[in-house]
Every structure is written in structure tokens, then in C-alpha cells.
């Protein structure tokens, strides 16, 4: 009676996988097509583009940031935002680095660093859920405070972690059968969280809370707890990214990651996350950061003048997002 066109309605509740038939219906299909188109164009324009070396270089360049993107996406889904991720990445580097310089073994130092990052997240979570401030202003303050902490700890000079043992440096610099560990870690985290976000009960609560906090609360979901833990998760992943950066660069610079937050948020938003919560996928967000990275690399490969790089990059970004939007609108 009330629903005449029954057949049309049985869309899957959540995307379950990458079966080819459903490809066209995926939120991410548009982005994939755009990125592929860019890549094909680039392969013709530059003989160096479609080499393993270059692909590896591009993957390396966004894989650590990609870990941060994962946390940010989950946080955006719950309706939050974290402007402090850049500072926290730096904070983890600095804490881990100085602990190591104080004589701790690097693994313990890194655990402490990740723990400290989680603590920053817990602090933000406290102000958001208990005091009742919004995520934007809380994380903005945290961004300033944590950056300040980095300055205090390092006294403004980069910590040289040259003496890090090689087995620790291997995380950031080593490879396994030609594939860098960094990429492996990145892929594992992305696949894990993409799966969890779609299938795990705990992460469904994140969706519900972000979609309609009241409704979630009425269903007995402790939305404040959910928001708290997601805030912690985002900072923790930023901390993890920080220690991987530390391992890769063998240094801890107090100015590292300034302005990173906008890039991260942009990636998630390009990938379909909504700033008002309730929507977003890890896979899309990763495509977002991949797009940003491919564009940057391409401009360098094509040897575009530095003065024009920004402008062209912005235009490609705008065009890509518009096309993606258009493709998705057409579908629905």
C-alpha cells in the first residue's frame, strides 16, 4: 500500500564489499574514476608516472597521513572535528624522541608517546562531553596548547634521533619483499577500520550518534561515551602516525605537522564525510587523500612552475569534487 515500488527499495543497508556489479552504486565510484582518469592522463604525459618507484613514492607520501585520516573520518562521522591532529602528531614525535634521548628504549618510548597522545584526546573528550564545549573550539585550544608543549619539551630545537636503533628505524624506512612496512601498516589499519566501521557494533553506535544524537540517546546509547572514545581514538591514531614519522625521519621537529589538519579534514570531506556527522567512509577518505597526493605529485612530475602549482592544484581539487558531486547526485 504505502510503498508501491518495492523492488527499487531493497538497497543494501551498508556497503559490504567491492563486488564489481555494485561498483556503480558505490559512494566512492566517482572518486575512483576521477583518480584513475588522472592517473591514465599522467601516464601519457610522463613516462615516469606509471612506474613502481613512483607509485611507491606516492603511497609512501600519504600513507602515514592516511592513518590520521582514518581517525579523523571516524570523528567526523560522530559529528566532531579535530584541529589538533597536526599538533598531536608532532607531540608524539617529540615525547617519543625525548623519552628515547633520556635513555628509554625506543619501543617503550613510543608506547608512552602514543599513550600521551591518547591522553590529549581524553582531555579534549572531557571538555567536549563533560564541560560541554564543541569539538571545534576545544580542539583549536588543544592545537595551541599541544604545540606549545612541543616547544616546551624541545626548547625550540629539533631533537636529533640519529642514534635510534636500526630495528626501530626499520618501521619507517624498511621494507618487506620490496613493500615498505609503512605501507603495510597503513593498509592494515585502513582495512581494519573500514571493516570495523561497517560491521562492528561499537562503530555502528558512532554512526547513530553522529546521525542523530538525541535518537541514539533515546535508544540507550551512551552518546557521551561514544564521543569521548572516538575523540581519544582520533588522537591515538595521530599519535601512532607521529611515532611512525619519528621512525621514518629519525627526528622530532617542534614545528612538524603545522597546518596538517586542513589537509586531513579535506581528504575526509572529499571522500564523502559530512561535517555535520552521520556520513563518511574510511575508504572514501583514503581516496580523498590519494587524490590530493596524486595531484601534488603530478604537478611536480610535469615540472609545473611553483608559482602556478597552487592554483592548478586548487582548480583540479575543485573540479574533482564537483564531478564527484555531480556523479553522486545523478545516481540518487
Amino acid at each position, binding site marked *: 500500500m504505502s510503498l508501491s515500488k518495492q523492488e527499487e527499495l531493497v538497497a543494501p543497508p551498508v556497503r559490504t564489499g567491492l563486488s564489481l556489479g555494485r561498483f556503480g552504486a558505490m559512494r566512492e565510484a566517482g572518486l575512483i574514476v576521477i583518480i584513475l582518469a588522472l592517473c591514465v592522463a599522467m601516464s601519457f604525459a610522463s613516462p615516469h608516472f606509471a612506474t613502481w618507484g613512483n607509485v611507491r613514492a606516492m603511497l609512501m607520501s600519504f600513507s602515514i597521513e592516511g592513518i590520521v585520516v582514518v581517525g579523523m573520518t571516524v570523528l567526523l562521522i560522530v559529528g566532531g572535528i579535530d584541529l589538533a591532529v597536526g599538533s598531536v602528531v608532532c607531540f608524539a614525535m617529540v615525547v617519543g624522541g625525548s623519552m628515547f634521548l633520556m635513555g628509554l628504549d625506543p619501543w617503550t618510548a613510543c608506547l608512552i608517546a602514543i599513550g600521551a597522545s591518547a591522553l590529549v584526546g581524553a582531555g579534549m573528550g572531557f571538555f567536549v562531553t563533560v564541560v560541554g564545549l564543541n569539538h571545534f573550539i576545544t580542539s583549536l585550544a588543544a592545537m595551541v596548547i599541544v604545540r606549545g608543549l612541543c616547544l616546551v619539551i624541545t626548547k625550540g630545537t629539533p631533537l636529533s634521533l640519529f642514534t635510534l636503533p636500526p630495528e626501530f628505524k626499520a618501521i619507517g624506512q624498511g621494507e618487506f619483499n620490496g613493500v615498505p612496512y609503512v605501507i603495510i601498516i597503513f593498509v592494515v589499519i585502513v582495512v581494519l577500520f573500514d571493516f570495523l566501521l561497517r560491521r562492528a*557494533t561499537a562503530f555502528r553506535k558512532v554512526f547513530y550518534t553522529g546521525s542523530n544524537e538525541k535518537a541514539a540517546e533515546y535508544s*540507550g546509547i551512551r552518546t557521551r561515551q561514544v564521543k569521548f572514545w572516538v575523540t581519544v581514538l582520533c588522537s591515538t591514531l595521530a599519535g601512532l602516525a607521529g611515532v611512525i614519522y619519528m621512525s621514518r625521519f629519525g627526528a622530532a621537529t617542534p614545528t612538524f605537522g603545522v597546518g596538517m589538519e586542513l589537509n586531513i579534514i579535506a581528504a575526509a570531506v572529499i571522500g564523502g564525510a559530512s561535517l555535520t556527522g552521520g556520513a563518511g567512509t574510511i575508504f572514501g577518505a583514503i581516496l580523498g587523500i590519494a587524490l590530493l597526493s596524486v595531484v601534488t605529485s603530478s604537478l611536480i612530475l610535469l615540472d609545473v612552475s611553483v608559482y602556478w602549482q597552487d592554483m592548478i592544484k586548487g582548480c583540479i581539487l575543485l573540479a574533482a569534487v564537483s564531478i564527484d558531486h555531480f556523479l553522486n547526485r545523478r545516481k540518487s
Partner: protein
Amino acid sequence: MSGGNVLEIRKISKHFGAVQALAEVDFMLERGEIHALCGENGAGKSTLMNIVAGILAPSSGEIRLEGLPVHIGSPAEAQRLGIGLVHQEIALCKDATVAENILMAATNARRAPLMNFSELNRTAQKVMNRLAPIPVTRRVGALSISNQQLVEIAKALTLDCRVLIFDEPTAALTEAETQALFCIIRGLKQRGISIIYISHRMAEIFALCDRVTVFRDGRYVSTDRIAEVTPDHVVRRMVGREITQLYPEKLAGEPGAPLLEVERLSDGAQFSDVSFTLRRGEILGLGGLIGAGRTEIALGVCGLAPTTQGSIRVDGQPVAIADYTDAIRAGIVYLSEDRKHSGVFLDLSIAANVSALDLRKLTRNGLVDRRLELTQAITLCTRLGVKMGAIGDPVSSLSGGNQQKVAIAKQLSVKPRVIIMDEPTRGIDVGAKSEIHKLLRELAADGVGIIVISSELPELLGISDRVIVIRGGRIAGEVTGAMTEEAVIRLASGVGGNFADVA
């Protein structure tokens, strides 16, 4: 009678700032009864239910469950205690599917780390089908407001409760769904579940409930067995005065010249080939089941949704309506059925809400004339009996029915030629309802054309001079003269074909 009070509410008070919403009210719910709670808009019904369900904290007073005093600090706690609530305001996660919404509480309680979507969908579909066959894999945001209301009800049915509260569940439902719901509620009662049922529709209360409690202005008035009172009694207790005539007199003579002529209007999807004429001075009803497409037709006429075919004439002159602003220019206004989503501005003041539709009238030299705005808002709100703190308070501080009144006040603030009202009296109490009906009739007498879409059949028949019935996006027929509910239902459901007295 067995002394088995499941829920005892003693001397509960609640105030919001200066507004006293509840003053030491008592309420006793017996095991296995269906207990109606009545009162004017703003009497405090929803507030009390929200307190019982752990959403609001009382200022003072005591709640006992099975004789034991309980503290209900959160909805989660209420659920643990076995108290479920169907909210007056739809509170669903629009981005999630129907199934996920229906079983959200269960999901939350489950220990399993991973979701089992196929089982979820199966279970949810079973529950949903008891009310209406809405496919549970749809996104809730894609459903019409009435279907969302059904989802909201289905959601409560999955809870394992001792006490189940329905806060105006039928406000958006038509007869068929209402009957399905009643069946379910009676079944629940059979299983020993105690029900609190809030509604402004007397007929439903007398058909369903065992006892009725009346609140007035945040105070407890009385509790009676349904068998021992009449609807008039209850209304008098609620309103404090007699409501002699529920509906105003109908149009006496012949209607005037054609005012709004809609010809062969289609939108290519929800409705097609719709033609009708609205004459000066008459009130035209649009009837039909949920999803028949009445709302879509109204949206199409007003330019709020695109149409593919058809023409519209006002006063015999063809008008091009590309968007709603054009419609307003042509003198056509529309009252949305979804007040929260598109009817009111929840965080803006009542006065600002009332003036939203025609700011030009209030503008002097590009500035809003504040005195004029306040006068207009106070006049209209007083006329409609909006119970409020101050005219500058945000609309979110009003009870559901009073929000609806503000939405109507907004519509009435302009002097349009045609008013289309979609479920205008949803959630509005008996007294205010007849006031609104009177107003509509007065407007009609002044030459305004009025189209009313209502799912409440008695109202539709009581207020309209003529009813057009929509089925599946097409006009199924017209009912005039001595209109009966039966005639409308037959047309709406397609049973019996053109039996009705199509004039």
C-alpha cells in the same frame, strides 16, 4: 483494582526557568491497563513522560516502579527498568536504515562485537510488517513523515518493557494504520504490559483505553474509568469550558467563482493527471491513505517540488510557478506537514517564526519594525491559544502542539488568496482545534480559498465542503453533499470502485 500499580508518580514538579510545566502531579498506572493521558497543548503530558523515560530530570517528586522508588537518570536506565517511550517528536537516525533504527536499542544491548545485518533485517521486517510493509533496508531519511512515524512506533515494539508510553502516535497516521496499531496495543495489554496513551483524539481514547487522566496547566485534574465518563466530560475537564460545536457551519450557499484551477498536473513520479478547481469561499478537503501523494500534489502546486506537466490558473489567469516565491506572489501559501523539519525555526523566537512568511509587511526602510512584529505575533498567538513563556522565547521551548500553532500562526500572518494546509491540526488539542477550524471558516467567508489535507477523517469531513480523494497519485473521486467516512475510505482504498456519490 488489584492494587497492582506498576508505576506510581507522586508530586512530580518540573520547571524550565520561570515556566512551571508540572506542579506536583500524581499519576498511577495499573498493571495491564491502557491509560489515557489528556490535556490541552502545553498541559505537561510530554514533560511527564520524558521524566518517566529518563530524558528530563524532575525538579522534585518521586517515581515508584512496582512499589519501589527509582531514580531514572537516563534513557538507558529507563530501558533497563522496562520503560519504553514512543516520542511525540520523531527522533530517528536519518542516515541509518529502518532496520537499524528499529533495533537500535537491541543493537546497543547486544554483546556480539559484529553486526549481523541479515538477521537484523529479518527481525526488523517482522516487527515492521505488523504495522505496515515498509522495507526495512531503506534509509529512514528517504521515508515520508508518516512512514517515519510508523518506524518510530515499531522501534518501541522491540523493547522488552513493562510500561510502554505512546505520545500522540497517531497524529500522522490514517485510519488503517491506526487500527493496526490498536490491535498491537491490545495484544500488548493481553501480555500484561501497561500502556500510557496520549492523544488529542477523543474517539481513539474511548475506543482503546480503560482509564483516563486529565492534566490542566501542569496540574493533575482527575482520573476516571472510561466507562464512567463521556467525551464531553473529558473535554470539559481539559479545557475548563464546554465545547459545544466541534466543527463550524459549512458553506451555506453556492461557492463563488473559481479561484485556483489545477489542470492535468503531473510530476512524473508521485502523481499524474491531477485536475481540480477550488472556488472562492469554499474549503476543499484532500483525502487518501498514507503515501497516496497528497503532499506531493500540494508541493507541486506551490512550486516546492518540480512538476513535469500541467497548468495552474489563479482567478482564471494562468500563472507560472517555478518556485515557492512565485507561489507566494500568486497568493498561494503552504503549511508543511513536517513541522520540525520544514515548518518552524526551532532556535529562533516565536515572534521571528510568525513573521517569517511575509517580512515585507513588517519592513520599514529596510528594517524590521519590531513593534509591528510583536503585535502581530502576540495577536495571532493569543488567538490560537499558544501556551508560552515569552514571545521572545525560542520555539524549541514550546510543547509539540504549541509549535504547530506557531506554524499555523505563521501561515495566517499573511493574507493569502489560497491556503494549502497539510495536516494542520496535527497534535493540536480539541479546544484549539475548533478555534482553528473557526478561523479557517472565517477566512473562507472572506473569500480565501482553502485546501485541507488531513489524515483524520472526522476532521476532514467536518471542516470541508467537498472532499477529493487521492489514490496512487491520481484523483480517485470526489465526495460531496452528505459525506460519509465510508465513502472516502472506499475511494481511498479502491474498494467498490465509483460507488460514492460522485457529483
